[in-house]
């Protein structure tokens, strides 16, 4: 078995030695966002290149350009000096580029074998499948990975980690010259991470180009050779991993000005009495979560995606059923059966996914601002239009929402303005909101608007409201929240005060095993 691998490796070495991938001056805009601006870098064979950046820095867009899923507005990608024009993903695959996305592109109802071959099944000229060949190759790949997976098992029956590994096997099977991993370790356990890293090392020795997207610095130091840092769609710098350190990377990722943003905030200094107490909250996704929130306090939730932060606030808000535990609001034990009850009790939730859960996209700004208070706008039988207009205008003024009219469909606004519409919705004077929950409010929003949103959070705290602030961007949580709660795998793994919190401390708690 091992010998066979050797043979295969040496054959491939001939083909991919001295390979280069050049990304030259790539720009891509989406309505309202410049996702990539003049990004250029070069990757050479036998090296692992890290793409590093915060959420929204343009890493995913860049991968989509490489995989032929979207076409850049400007610039080109060159392999071995030859410009590549990808009109469809299949052309990128043929050119030897495989991208392993975070959202798994697998088919649950099909077998592991077929998923490994996804769309590229070997067949005779008449179109008959070569089943034996498929089985042999699949078994060999699985044993190369050192995993115990039945190749005939339906993919949907595998664990998430194994599904992720099958996704990687797909690219391995294609024998691509260039393989890009988009946060591959997000759902893997330690054993599988070890297997993956061994595999990446082997691919590297085979002379392939590996692109590795992650924001886990430890991993990047462990396996990459070079690092490209992206920020707000621009390339900040290209570094050698051996010659840099975490501090330099973080500085490059976050940029210089962000520290000033935080110090310029007008914060709240008087923290009041207890507003919300959560005791041993348990649902399907979270276990034994307890914390306390005071009036005028911002409590930040940190942790990796999927750590259970969203589930905690959804449970408090009555959107998910609670198995056991207590929620005490203003000294009274409450149990909300549906979000409506929570809203009436003075809680507001700005959900994680603006598009799917926050906005009614094809309705006007006015409808979106007035959404929770329509009931309070009855004038006899009908809804009072003037009241709605007044309320919306107030919100637009308060948060300087840039919209040409009240009637503008909210889908046509930029991400930052959409978020402000949601904030305006929950802070109108018709609602007696005591506690505001914001789940990833700065996702996909430009730096300027981010700063505005930070100030809005602090202002809300100054008004004496309680604020729960969930974010995956560490610097943000550490610098905005008064208390930081770190979660991992459905459990609270630590609570820190702002003065004590550092990225290292929070990260080590978030990745606790």
């Amino acid at each position: 078995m091992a010998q066979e691998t050797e043979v295969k490796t040496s054959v491939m070495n001939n083909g991919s030695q001295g390979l280069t991938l050049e990304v030259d001056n790539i720009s891509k805009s989406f309505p309202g966002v410049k996702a990539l601006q003049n990004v250029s870098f070069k990757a050479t064979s036998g090296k692992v290149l890290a793409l590093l950046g915060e959420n929204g820095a343009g890493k995913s867009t860049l991968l989509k350009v490489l995989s032929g899923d979207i076409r850049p507005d400007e610039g080109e990608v060159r392999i071995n000096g030859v410009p590549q024009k990808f009109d469809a993903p299949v052309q990128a695959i043929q050119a030897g580029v495989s991208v392993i996305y975070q959202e798994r592109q697998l088919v649950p109802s099909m077998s592991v074998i077929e998923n490994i071959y996804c769309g590229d099944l070997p067949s005779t000229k008449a179109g008959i499948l070569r089943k034996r060949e498929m089985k042999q190759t699949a078994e060999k790949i699985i044993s190369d990975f050192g995993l115990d997976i039945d190749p005939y098992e339906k993919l949907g029956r595998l664990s998430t980690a194994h599904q992720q590994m099958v996704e990687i096997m797909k690219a391995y099977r294609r024998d691509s010259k260039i393989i890009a991993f988009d946060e591959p370790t997000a759902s893997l356990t330690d054993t599988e991470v070890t297997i993956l890293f061994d595999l990446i090392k082997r691919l590297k020795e085979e002379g392939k180009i590996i692109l590795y997207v992650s924001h886990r610095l430890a991993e990047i130091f462990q396996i990459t050779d070079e690092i490209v840092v992206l920020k707000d769609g621009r390339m900040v710098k290209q570094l050698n991993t051996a010659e840099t350190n975490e501090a330099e990377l973080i500085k490059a990722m976050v940029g210089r000005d962000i520290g000033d943003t935080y110090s310029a905030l007008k914060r709240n200094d008087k923290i009041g009495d207890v507003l919300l107490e959560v005791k041993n909250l348990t649902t399907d996704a979270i276990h034994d979560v307890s914390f306390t929130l005071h009036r005028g306090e911002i409590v930040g939730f940190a942790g990796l995606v999927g750590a259970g932060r969203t589930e905690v606030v959804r449970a408090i808000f009555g959107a998910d059923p609670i198995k056991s535990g207590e929620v005490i609001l203003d000294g009274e034990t409450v149990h909300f059966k549906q979000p409506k009850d929570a809203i009436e009790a003075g809680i507001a939730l700005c959900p994680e996914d603006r598009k799917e859960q926050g906005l009614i996209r094809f309705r006007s700004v006015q409808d979106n601002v007035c959404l929770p208070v329509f009931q309070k706008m009855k004038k006899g039988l009908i809804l009072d239009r003037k009241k709605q207009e007044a309320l919306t205008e107030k919100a637009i003024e308060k948060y300087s929402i840039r919209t040409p009219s009240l009637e503008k469909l909210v889908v046509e606004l930029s991400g930052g303005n959409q978020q402000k519409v949601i904030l305006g919705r929950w802070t109108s004077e018709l609602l007696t909101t005591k506690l505001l929950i914001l789940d990833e409010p700065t996702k996909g929003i430009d730096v300027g608007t981010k700063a505005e949103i930070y100030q809005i959070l602090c202002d809300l705290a100054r008004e004496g409201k309680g604020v729960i602030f969930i974010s995956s961007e560490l610097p943000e949580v550490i610098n905005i929240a008064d208390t930081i709660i770190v979660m991992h795998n459905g459990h609270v793994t630590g609570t820190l005060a702002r003065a004590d919190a550092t990225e290292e401390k929070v990260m080590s708690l978030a990745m606790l095993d």
Partner: protein
Amino acid sequence: MSGSFIKRITRNKAFSLAVIMIVIWLFFFLINHNYFAGENFTGIMNTSSLSGTIAIGLACLMMSGSIDLSAGSIGCFGGVLVALFLRAGMNWILALVLTILCGVVMGLINAFWVNVMKLMPFISTIAMSSIYQAMAVIVTKSNDIAIGEGAFTRMGTGHIGIFPVPFIIMVVLMIIYGLMLNYTRFGRRLILCGGNRTAARLAGINHQKITTIMFANCGAISALAGAILAARMYNGGPRAVLGAEMDAMTAAIMGGVSFLGGGTSGMGTIFVALLLVNSFNNGLQVIKVNSFWQFVTRGGLLILALIVDYFRESRRQKALKQGAKV
């Protein structure tokens, strides 16, 4: 080893369907012993050959992620067309081929609305259904058209051993399509398409092309089914095939084909599901229940199939969740 073999069989959907079918058989047999008479079984085979043939095309289309509610109407039109062609003195093979070609065209019209105009397949094919239906009545002026051609009618009425020819045609088609789904590149691509459209796109599979082919295929098979029915009845009736697409759909869903793509099923499972549906309908006739109950059972069985599928799916999801945690 033998333990896991038994486990595999009992986990198999076809197995549980077969058990239900035997229960249904016994139930009707106890009420009326004629249920097990030879000619009654011939009847079941004959009726299932109609919905079964349509189910082949429909199931393939559903697996690729679309649906055609006009399959029954295309069948009606097919039966009428073949009768008209024969009356015009055409050779029966030519007439049959032409009819199937017309079916392809009707399928392509459906595909046009869905793939080019981007309308929802449900609503656009249900609209096309009334159009095809009306066309069938209009061209026949609402009369049945008699078929005299002997060679052609033998295709519908003949027997090989105890099996009626239409039934054999259905089984042969099922085997061919079953092999196609399981053993060819195209078949697997088709299922991949319905299972995860994004994955298919990233792998360079053209979803529109595949569903267009499957629409055409479904139209062709439905027209053929209509023609075979016309041969069996010695005439082409403009309303003969109505409702068969419901049975076909029910059988496909019972067999595990999901509505919005993603579910797959072997033709064998669909075959068992089909016999089950038809045995049930036939049983109702044998025990002399008012024939209008067929409307009720048709809808009722479809809803029942959906409910069973729902519980099976939610149980599977639950097991998966727990499995992942442990």
